[in-house]
């Protein structure tokens, strides 16, 4: 069975760079590539009743948008290059979900982009790259 690589994207430039880097690696090694978009979400937030009522609808919209605007273009471009690529959209905390996906798909490596936050910003808001490196079950490559 071929190796599997996982790349996290979010529609940003950093994510696109990571996707390019990962597809190059996948092409070279003939690995399968899983392209993941994680929509930031937590089950422990405080919502208004209106938000709760609309939540299911919003979730569908969020998934559709992520798929059509980010995942589909990337995956079809990769397929065009002959890579065995697959897209996935999930809700949750980015670092946790990417680790989870790595286990599910038995990926050997994770690629992600970075925001290039200042130290202070990263301390205040937490950086996905920083926490993923701590929790990931497999090696993580952060693309500058």
């Amino acid at each position, binding site marked *: 069975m071929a190796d599997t690589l996982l790349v996290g994207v979010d529609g940003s430039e950093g994510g696109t760079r990571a996707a390019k880097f990962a597809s190059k690696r996948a092409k070279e090694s003939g690995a399968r590539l899983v392209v993941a978009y994680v*929509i930031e*979400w937590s*089950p*422990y*937030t*405080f*919502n*208004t*009743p*209106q*938000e*709760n*009522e*609309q*939540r*299911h*609808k919003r*979730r*569908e919209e*969020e*998934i559709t948008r992520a798929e059509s605007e980010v995942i589909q273009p990337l995956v079809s471009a990769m397929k065009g290059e002959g890579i065995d690529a697959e897209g996935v959209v*999930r*809700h*949750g905390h980015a670092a946790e*979900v990417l680790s*989870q996906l790595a*286990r*599910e798909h038995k990926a050997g490596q994770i690629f992600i982009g970075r925001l290039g936050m200042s130290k202070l910003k990263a301390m205040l808001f937490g950086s996905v790259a920083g926490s993923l490196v701590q929790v990931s079950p497999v090696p993580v490559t952060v693309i500058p």
Partner: protein
Amino acid sequence: MRLFLTAFFATVLWAPVSWAQDAAGAVGLDERINQTISPVTNAIAGIVFYSVPITDDVGLPVIVVWLVVAAAFATFYFNFISVRAFRHAVDLVKGDYSNPKDAGEVSHFQALATALSGTVGLGNIAGVAIAVSIGGPGATFWMILAGFLGMSLKFAECTLGVKYRNEYEDGTVSGGPMYYLSKGLAEKGMGGLGKFLAVFFAICCIAGSLGGGNMFQANQSFQQFVNVTGGEASFMADKGWLFGLIVAALVGVVIIGGIQSIAKVTEKIVPFMAIIYVTAALVIIVMNYDLVPAAFGAIIGGAFSPEGVAGGFVGALIQGFRRAAFSNEAGIGSASIAHSAVRTKEPITEGLVALHEPFIDTIVICTMTALVIVITGVYTAGSGMGGVELTSLAFESAFSWFPYVLALAVILFAFSTMLSWSYYGAKCWTYLFGESRSMDLLFKLIFCIFVVIGASMNLGPVVDFSDSAIFAMSIANIIGLYILFPVVKAELTSYWSRLKSGEIRKYTSSEAAE
């Protein structure tokens, strides 16, 4: 239609101003609003609170018996589910049993938090003070007991709310007593009765939304505002209508203008205010730890043989039960509307989660308020004081600056409760008059007007109307619950056996892969 509404809104907004000019001489505007509305609210309260005389000066309101009997029945019928499932409910809230595939949907925690922000509010701060000032410390005991019994009732109504909710094509959901009364009773071959009860419930819920969910909140937050800005001498002292207009404008901006950011901010601040409030109460209790045994003594002793309470034992009991029901809303049906938005395959799980609502609301937060009032002894000193002023005085005796924090907490609690109840009211209004935007808007306009009325009135008539409207909701709701209890029991038995057999298990990270 739009023109009509604009004209309507303009008239209503300007009317108080023109009255104010007329009334500047003899009677204050607040007094005039009070005189106009009180006879109506008194009449309504008289019907809902029909009392059986126990002694010469105390009667037992039939509606209180109705609620307590239903809560006690549910507690025994579901075999103390509130104790049995307490731990499991904690696991459900934590998300241990939530399917990871449902990430992004409304979680149990979110549904509970939303419902709680509708119930935790002035009932916990002002309502308890009313109970203790009228019923003595012993009222606290009955309040806690009513909270405990109410857990089982809340469990039943929230399970049904999820089971019989409407799920629309566009993915939005609507649930609550109006749906389980009409659909649930139709399943039992009582469609006619179900429809009637659903409509009756919806009407009462609209009144409750305008009363307890609105006027009472506006009134009490105004009282506390005046309190901290100098009492009688405050520049706002006789300008309840002005305070009402400001709050109405803020509420209107959120619910009509759709400025959800204000609502979002409120929903995020309120939990922290609740934590600050409970922490302050705990600090006062710890500071006076030597008085705690005496306070418990007064609470338990006062429950059975109170001194100086009108009606003695029954007087304390009525006050305790009445305030508990007003605070945690078990049997009222309102929370069921909020809980219905959760994403779950098992309606029973939301019912179990909802058990925690009366627990947090009444057994934890109300008890804190009561202990502070009893420990500081202000309920005897502050004679003639009721509601939020008394609570404020109790906290002030420990921290002189606390009334300001309390004023902020009260106004925020009131605001979030108003937002929740405007939602409940609007759901019932559109259930009755059709789900159109214009109907939704019309209700929200009426809602804003009642904010002004509530802020302008005296406490007495406001409390009576709030109580009667909210308690009236329980008439239809509980009739339906008795008929539908077996449905809940069947769901519970099935779920519980699958849980015990291991068919329903916690999701672990490795399992989520499948």
